[in-house]
């Protein structure tokens, strides 16, 4: 009996240990806790595979940038069950950035991280008084969303990033998100909202268990927007790595969009005018002033990429001189 008990204990300890280190995370849904934070981030396991990305050439309701439809293959990954909320995002914006807040220097080195820097606190209320706490965070730049992922990675020792455009569409299509019989059940959009976003997770999840993929807030993905990208994109894990500040891709549509705009293939793009009320030059690297409809969710690849590959995801900042 005694031996048996000890074995059980050891087994439990081992499980806890492995779960904490993350490398041997079973490929199933899990909750990512953050040390010192109240909230955790729910992650949904998504088995990769082949799918047809984009809209069919016969679908005249879809834009040319959604065509041609082409075969794409994505690897296994986890994706956030919900959009990142204000309480999750503010932990980053208003967090401490001393080395004691993060994993060891050696550990961060393996994740391609030399330093972690925080967003400048906003001068105004970036929620536009639409709600905080478990409402989705909005108005952050894509760079800020990526830096959130870097911060999250540094805190947890687990590599997180934004989804690629392909991964996002895969989750949307595989979860049959836009095949819901009544969109009102699965999404917040112009016709169903009170001119604002709503708390995450109030609507029914898609078939994979992911909430609010369509509507509520549009979501940053990792890609540069290029209307012609589908003509030449690679089959395996495509990613149009950004080299220009604008436009970059957002997906899913938001509370501002009408129902007909909500679709797994619709491609949104960032605009300079999303910073038009930023009175300073250079404009903020961290905040949009006019994008209260853009947020994000995070992704974790099942197989952690090499340090060199991870580094390519921590995009360098491009100063915004607001040319238009």
């Amino acid at each position, binding site marked *: 009996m005694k031996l048996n008990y000890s074995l059980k204990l050891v087994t439990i300890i081992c499980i806890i240990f492995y779960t904490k280190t993350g490398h041997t995370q079973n490929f199933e849904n899990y909750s990512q806790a953050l040390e010192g934070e109240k909230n955790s981030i729910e992650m949904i396991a998504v088995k990769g595979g082949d799918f047809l990305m984009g809209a069919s050439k016969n679908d005249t309701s879809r834009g040319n940038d959604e065509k041609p439809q082409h075969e794409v293959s994505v690897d296994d990954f986890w994706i956030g069950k919900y959009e990142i909320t204000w309480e999750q995002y*503010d932990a980053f914006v*208003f967090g401490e950035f001393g080395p004691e807040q993060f994993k060891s220097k050696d550990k961060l080195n393996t994740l391609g991280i030399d330093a972690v820097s925080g967003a*400048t*606190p*906003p*001068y*105004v*209320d*970036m*929620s*536009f*008084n*639409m709600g*905080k706490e478990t409402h989705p965070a909005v108005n952050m730049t894509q760079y800020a969303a990526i830096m959130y992922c870097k911060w999250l990675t540094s805190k947890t020792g687990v590599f997180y990033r934004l989804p690629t455009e392909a991964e996002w569409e895969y989750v949307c299509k595989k979860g049959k998100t836009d095949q819901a019989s009544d969109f009102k059940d699965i999404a917040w959009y112009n016709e169903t909202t009170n*001119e604002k976003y709503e708390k995450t997770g109030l609507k029914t999840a898609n078939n994979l268990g992911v909430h609010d993929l369509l509507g509520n807030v549009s979501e940053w993905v990792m890609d540069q927007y290029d209307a012609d990208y589908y003509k030449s994109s690679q089959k395996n894990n495509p990613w149009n790595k950004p080299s220009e500040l604008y436009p970059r891709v957002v997906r899913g549509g938001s509370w*501002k969009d009408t129902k007909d705009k909500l679709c797994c293939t619709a491609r949104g793009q960032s605009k300079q*005018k999303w910073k*038009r*009320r*930023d*009175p*300073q*030059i*250079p404009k903020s690297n961290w905040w949009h*002033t*006019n994008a*209260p409809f853009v947020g994000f969710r995070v992704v974790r690849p099942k197989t952690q990429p090499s340090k060199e590959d991870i580094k390519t995801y921590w995009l360098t900042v491009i*100063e915004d*001189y*607001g*040319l238009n």
Partner: protein
Amino acid sequence: MEQKKNNLSRRNFVKGSSLAAGGILLTPSLLTASPIFNKAKKLKLAVVGCGGRGTGAVSQALKADENIELVAMADAFEDRLEKAYTSLTKMFQTKKLNVKPSHKFVGFGSYKKAIDAADVVILTTPPGFRPQHFEYAISQGKHVFMEKPVATDVAGIKKVLEAAKVAKAKKLNVVVGLQRHYQSSYVETYNRIQKGDIGQIVSGQVYWNGSGVWVRPREANQTEMEYQMRNWYYFNWICGDHILEQHIHNIDVANWFIGGYPIKATGTGGREVRKGKDHGHIFDHHVVEFEYENGAIISSQCRHQPGTKHRVDESFQGTLGTSYSHGGSSAILKKYDGTKIYTHDSENDVNPYQQEHNRLFKSIRNGEVISDAENGAKSTMTAIMGRMATYSGKEITWDKAMALDHKLVPDEDTLTFDSVPPVVPDDNGNYPVPVPGKTNFI
């Protein structure tokens, strides 16, 4: 007054001498006199105060007019000036950037040379220095864009009000960076309130509750003056406290929509969270009640405390309905039964900061006059009155505040980086924080 006479007579002289005067046409006051030839005239722009906002304002001015060039820059610090210049070179062709090295003016008092070189000047230093810059620019017959607030003390307010009169007499355009006046959602709301859509305003709540701004740490070899000039936000004489520096926007909306300025103020405030040695002596929260002549009461809140609820907007209650306005999103007018009277979606509105300059330069070109300075001064004064109420804990009336001998800012022309600033730390490095009940109206 002597200055004013001279300028007026010079204008008359030039006007009489027509196009043949050639180079003399550079006198800006002439522009208002001969609009027909205005498009051909290249306008010279100078900026005084080259921070992020000054750089932003220059870029908007350069975009607002085809035939314009930046010719001079001034800042207390060379590094800030050069950073601004570098940013501008990334945005504009040399056609619009014509700042010779000899026209980059650095240090206290450098404003004069920059202003002298231009037809239109952008005044975007921290607010304590604004009255002196504005007074000089108007005395020299320049059109002005100046940021809010326009002063930090009553002496400065009086200087701006006086110069505002001179500007009107000289037909000089003055745009003040209270950009809500140039933002469609606010202008529409104002027009509808004027029309009586929500009746007469009886009360309102205005907010700038956020988490605060940057802190610039003290560096080795800095004099106390240089430290304060770098970390200016935390020093009342330079910044005016955040009730002026930020919250003026919302207080100004109350004045604008009500159509007047408060007769008195009471308030409470202090520093609870942001109270380190690197935070100078300003408060981190103020709550003020402003009373207007018609009996309307406005509650005003501003807070710089991370982790607290952020809110930056304005609500008003009228005899027939309510209005809600938010700089970023919307304006909504409603009846008390909840029926919507008006909703403004600002997504496609023109950038209000750009609109300020579009209007300024259009007005200059068409020989019209925009006169924002008086309201800029009086809304700044409203915020100063609020600050006096929270610092002292006493009731203050407009008339009493305006009658005070209240001067926080020294004559800039006498300052060097070795000068002793108006406020200095004690032996432990702490600055004297106002104490309600003990502190007078400062």
